[in-house]
């Protein structure tokens, strides 16, 4: 089967330091992959670089066999919750609607159909009752669900999520993972930057272990071993390679 995502020789830097070093991997469709690694390992940067939100120094990224700009509508991105201003005057429904802005096009307003789609997406995350609620009034878990609904409304084929389970309550964590499993069952592909080693085996069928470069990648059962974990997280300290030029 044609991989949904192919990354070859990706290099990227953040400030002065090399954060991604010759990263290469392929992702098969219908998988639910955890991206794990220590802080500063480049996990967020990997997502951002693939999505062209962060400059790449070298390497190739292919979504569904083509460049990102041709596949934008098929890729749903859920950034970290902390990057957003939660005091912004908007409600939950509005936030979800934003996921459709790419589709609605310039100069047009969101229509009834779009609102229905947004409400439906909120419903899938159990948040339809909060549609008109100001986002600053939502709890962390509720905010995360709204973010997820925003990704769902895009009806993408590949979902990239950056630490969706960070700082959420148990009920929300369960709801999110259920949704991700539903997506997988429907043939979608999901990649999640994940922070909790304890739950990797329970939640994900594949794992990508990253520490500036790919330490290991494959089915959780075979690849998520103590040796690989040690190589990813500790044991050796990667020397910070300054980027010049």
């Amino acid at each position, binding site marked *: 089967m044609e991989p949904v995502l192919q990354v070859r020789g990706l290099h990227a830097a953040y400030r002065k330091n090399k954060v991604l070093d010759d990263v290469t991997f*392929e992702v098969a469709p219908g998988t639910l992959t955890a991206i794990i690694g220590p802080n500063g390992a480049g996990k967020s940067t990997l997502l951002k670089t693939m999505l062209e939100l962060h400059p790449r120094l070298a390497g190739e990224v292919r979504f569904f066999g083509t460049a990102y700009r041709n596949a934008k509508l098929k890729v749903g991105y859920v950034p970290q919750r902390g990057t957003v201003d939660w*005091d912004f005057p908007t409600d939950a429904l509005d936030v979800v609607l934003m996921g459709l802005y790419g589709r609605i096009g310039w100069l047009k307003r969101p229509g009834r159909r779009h609102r229905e789609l947004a409400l439906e997406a909120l419903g899938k995350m159990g948040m339809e009752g909060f549609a008109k609620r100001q986002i600053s009034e939502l709890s962390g878990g509720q905010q995360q669900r709204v973010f997820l609904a925003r990704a769902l409304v895009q009806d993408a084929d590949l979902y990239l999520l950056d630490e969706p389970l960070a700082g959420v309550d148990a009920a929300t964590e369960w709801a999110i993972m259920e949704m991700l499993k539903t997506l997988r069952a429907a043939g979608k592909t999901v990649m999640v930057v994940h922070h909790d080693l304890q739950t990797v085996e329970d939640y994900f069928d594949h794992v990508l272990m990253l520490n500036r470069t790919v330490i290991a*990648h*494959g089915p959780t059962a075979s690849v998520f071993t103590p040796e690989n974990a040690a190589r990813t997280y500790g044991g050796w300290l990667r020397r910070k390679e300054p980027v010049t030029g």
Partner: protein
Amino acid sequence: MTGLTHNALWVLVSMLMLGTAAGLVGCFAYWKRQSLMSDALAHAALPGVVIGFAILGFKSLPVMLLGAAASALLGAWAVTAIRAHSRVKEDTAMGIMLSVFFGLGIMLLTMVNRMPGGGQSGLDSFIFGQAAAMVRQDMRTMAAVAAAVLLVVLVSFKEWKLYLFDPAFARGLGMSGRLMEAAYLTLLVVVIVVGIQAVGVILMAALLIIPAVSARYWTNAFGRMLALSALFGGGAGVIGAFVSTLEGGWPTGPFIVIAAAGIFLLSLVFGARKGLLVKAMQRREQMRQLELRAVRKEPLAEREALP
């Protein structure tokens, strides 16, 4: 330089001291990421200056400076209060405080200027600075204050370094964060308040920001950065003040800023640590190295085990 009057010499000396003090304190503000707060504080000082004059009815620099300090500190407090008790963000709070206080200052200034005897206030010189308007006493005040700042910074250099770069560790050592914060704010307000007569409220921040950033292009070491920033600040102060006295009626502030900006440009291009020239040379060297060495190409390694 022929025929520099005694007065002119005094002006230059006090500007040298002011620039030096501003360069030093500017480094602190830079590392605390509060470069624009100094701009807001400078603008906030204006109403205080005017009120200081209005209460007495005649120009008394110490009283006006006290008013300026009180006004600036009130402004600082307002920003924290807005930030703490509403969802308004810090930059917006600073902008509000800056423009509203300044607006109040202009209101009061205009009223005073229209009063009989208001023309002697010399208040207008606080907008853009007027080194020529300073009398001997003012310069003595400025020099004394600048010297005091210099002393404080030198004597507690180690403490400042720790406070700025490793506050958690500093607290662990028993250093009082609040004391340092208060000391920092005091130094900042004092330098601003003393400087606004020469540089003006609108551009005072420039003397605090530009020399510090210029120093960054030459060194990474905090101590050296302080020294260079002081040097650049003092230099900008002297050069700018000198040029502004070449023609009657020229405001001092803008010339000082341009002098500082000139130093900044030179640092940007020629700076030993991060300057453009040095970087260009580094890049050329790298390219040369790359050409000499064949790029090692690894076969697309089967590091991953795909299903």
